[in-house]
């Protein structure tokens, strides 16, 4: 009840505001001796001076001579060419050399201008500053306030304008998987701390059947360095925490591929020397500003059979799914979806040997969140 009450009160206060507001603009009468502002000439609907623009005359002929009027000689106009007379260029000739541009330049009337020289082309080449411009860091304020007094604020300015760290954490998939046989749970989370091009990443994913410990779970700690606008290179370690105790070295890339595919590809080398890889991709398809369809695919690969972990050489597993989420707020979205997983080749054999179906279809429901 209280919020409602206070809203009403605030509303009342606001209604009162306009009365107060009337004096807000600092109305004041300004006695100004000058003549009335000349009305912008309505007649100059066609550009009176488009020809002044430098580009219409070749820069090669641009004189270094700063005298007014020279430039006009290059143009097919009746403009007086006398450089010394150029200071008093009448507006009429200028109007005749307005072959283009139907813009209203009413304010650019040159009548009465002291000088009607065209813009200079300026220097063509970028050149370094002259030696008189000095060198070294900017320290002018040190002479006034002292180097010691300036140090903290200077460091603070440097640290807050550009490369400052942020923290991001995402639960990409926290879901229940409804399928034939026992239903399962899954988590897939990641996060980072760092600046725009250098970050420390944390990732974890795992799954298991409800009521039991995860069959399969891992955590990763990675250092990431941007190597392209949309791509980070990542290197670090992965520790499997479900199943046989296994530690992997990780190298990978993560980023945004053309067509807005979020891609995470990593190569793993286990402490036993087994080489595996994983490629994940997902893309957000906005149906409305809040309703988002997200197709997702994942492929797990191995360079060799890893019987201990039940992994088959070659393509071991493919997952394809689609999730439909509704962003209640940007950071929090429940979703539903469907996912199909196939074990393939030797991987399928390992699955069967373990009493599992190599092909599993799941209905999924979960939440995606980040902060």
């Amino acid at each position, binding site marked *: 009840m209280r919020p409602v009450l206070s809203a009403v009160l*605030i509303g009342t206060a606001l209604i009162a505001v306009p009365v107060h507001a009337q004096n807000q603009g600092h109305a*004041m009468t*300004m006695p100004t001796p000058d003549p009335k502002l000349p009305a912008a000439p309505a007649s100059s609907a066609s550009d009176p001076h488009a020809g002044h623009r430098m580009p219409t005359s070749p820069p090669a002929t641009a004189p270094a001579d700063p005298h007014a009027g020279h430039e006009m000689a290059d143009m097919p106009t009746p403009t007086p060419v006398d450089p010394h007379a150029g200071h008093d260029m009448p507006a009429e000739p200028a109007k005749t050399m307005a072959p283009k541009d139907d813009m209203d330049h009413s304010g650019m009337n040159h009548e009465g201008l002291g000088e009607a020289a065209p813009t200079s082309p300026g220097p063509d*080449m970028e050149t370094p*500053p002259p030696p008189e411009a000095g060198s070294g860091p900017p320290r002018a304020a040190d002479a006034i306030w002292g180097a010691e*007094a300036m140090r903290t604020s200077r460091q603070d300015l440097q640290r807050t304008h550009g490369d400052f760290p942020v923290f991001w954490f995402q639960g990409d998939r926290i879901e229940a998987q409804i399928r034939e046989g026992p239903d399962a749970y899954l988590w897939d989370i990641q996060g980072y701390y760092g600046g725009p091009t250098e970050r420390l990443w944390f990732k974890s994913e795992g799954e298991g059947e409800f009521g039991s410990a995860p069959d399969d779970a891992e955590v990763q700690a990675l250092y990431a360095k941007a190597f392209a606008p949309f791509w980070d290179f990542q290197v670090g370690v992965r520790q499997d925490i479900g199943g046989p105790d296994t530690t992997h070295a990780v190298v990978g890339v993560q980023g945004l591929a053309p067509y807005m595919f979020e891609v995470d590809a990593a190569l793993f080398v286990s402490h036993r020397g087994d080489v595996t890889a994983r490629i994940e991709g997902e893309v957000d398809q906005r149906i409305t500003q809040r309703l988002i369809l997200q197709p997702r695919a994942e492929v797990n690969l191995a360079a060799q059979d890893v019987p201990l972990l039940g992994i088959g050489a070659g393509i071991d597993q493919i997952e394809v799914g689609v999730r439909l989420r509704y962003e209640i707020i940007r950071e929090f979205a429940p979703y539903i979806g469907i996912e199909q997983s196939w074990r393939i080749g030797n991987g399928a054999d390992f699955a069967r040997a373990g009493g599992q179906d190599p092909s599993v279809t799941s209905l999924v429901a979960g939440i995606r969140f980040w902060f």
Partner: protein
Amino acid sequence: MHRGGTHGKGGPRIPAGFGEVSGDVIDLAVGSGHRIIEGRRGPGIAVNGSVPGPLIRLREGQNVRFNVTNNLGEDTSIHWHGLLLPFQMDGVPGISFPGIRPGQTFTYEFPVRQAGTYWYHSHSGLQEQSGHYGPLIIDPAGAEPVEYDRDYILLLSDFTVLDPHFIMQRLRTGEGYFNRQQNTWTDDYPMTAEERRMWAQMRMMPTDIMDIGGKTYTFLANGRGPTEGLEYLFKPGERVRLRIINGSAQSFFNVRIPGLPMTIIAADGQNVRPVEVDEFQIGTAEIYDVIVEPGDAAAYAIVGESMDRSGMALAMLTTSPGERASVPALRDPPLLTMGDMGMDHGSGGMDHSAMDHSGAFVGDAAGAEMGAKDHAQMGHGAPPAPAEASGSAVAGMAAGEMSMDGMKMRDTALLPPDVAVGPGIDMVSMAPVDKMGDPGLGLRDVPHRVLNYRMLTAHERNRDTREPSRLLELHLTGNMERYMWSFDGRMYSAVSDVPIRFAWNERVRVKLVNNTMMAHPIHLHGMFFELVNGESAAYQPRKNVVIVQPGASAQFDLTANEAGDWAFHCHLMYHMHGGMMQTVTVVGPEIGA
């Protein structure tokens, strides 16, 4: 985490609107509290207890002393935006002074050497977002160049209930987090399947017009939301001066008063020759003074529509309190086009209305010629035959087939060698053209007169009309996905000790090339530069913020005659914190001479 503390929603209620202070000694206090805008409570940082802070009214020629007391729990500062002053009074912690510690009173003191409309704001942390800004007017020592009966300030800004540090974090981690106008299967955007495919292929969003939209922001007029009734009174026949300041953290506005033309008389505080328009885009930190002459209607709506058309700031010109004019609906959001990637216009086979090449863009084809030639002569490997390419801009509209095949959106060979190529650059403008004549995203095809930089002419003659002695080319670079922003591929954190250097009184042409798909309002502290907009050197308009359009270039001439270290940055606050900032060092005469 992004340092600089957090902005809470506790403390006293900070009212919207402002009072006025003037004189030779002005006391200001920075404190925190909360703001309630249209019933929503958000963090607040206020100067003298209000958001915006008080109008500071000075007179040209006076000396002023500001005693600024910091009542926050973190450092603060006040930067006097657009003022000519000794660099150590400019108010940028880490560049011009050490900042103001909690509980400390810092005294700024300087002579007032100019006149016009300016503003002030914090340069510490992300305080600007929470309300640390206010208007500043300097009345001229002599007469105003124009006559008017009423003088009003319209300070546009953006309010959020969020802590700006949260916004910064989300911009870095959640691509498109604040964009609720993204492409979807069910959107109404006039895009073909092929165009949608291309944008996805490029990993970019054509809807990224402003990083933060109306879902997050409430757009404010003098601190008030659109339903909170800001009014300016007038009598029919009066001439009203509106000093329009974009004091937002991250927003561009399209300003119009339906039924009433506006005559621009000053830009960034500097007088320009009067030019009448029906609408103009005002980039973050830009300032335009306009004169309007309301007619017979009882009220007129002053609409500050956000560039992405996700919301508006609103005020009313009224003949009596409570009068309301009808408020136009938000127009359809604009989309970025291939032209905003710096693709040559000739490739514009897309049939977006926004790609309309009439008007401003025909003029820009000529600009393209110059831009491309510069490149060729600098040996950057710019595309050949730029003249024909730009000349065929209009023809290309019909003939060109849009295809990504064989087109590189990140050809780093096009960049000069002094640009650091790396992950921080996700795009290189293919053929950046000078778009001084561009009215801005979403305003290229409106059926009325819209301001562009080519229409600005200095009112008073520029003092220095020397030919620039050298060219400085700076590339605006970024990575949208990582939210990295930079000059020449290096974020401020990498170049804090590598300033852009100028010799004393050096005259330099600075060319800014935008290799990103966002418009950047680039601001130089401490000096005015002159836009190279086709005007003669004597009358190039003086400004201190220049919008560089997506994929395009912009040039200004600078006389480096203010000694010291100055901040130079994108005035989108989150872009500046994302790295798009550098120090400019002007060596003083005693050293340089």
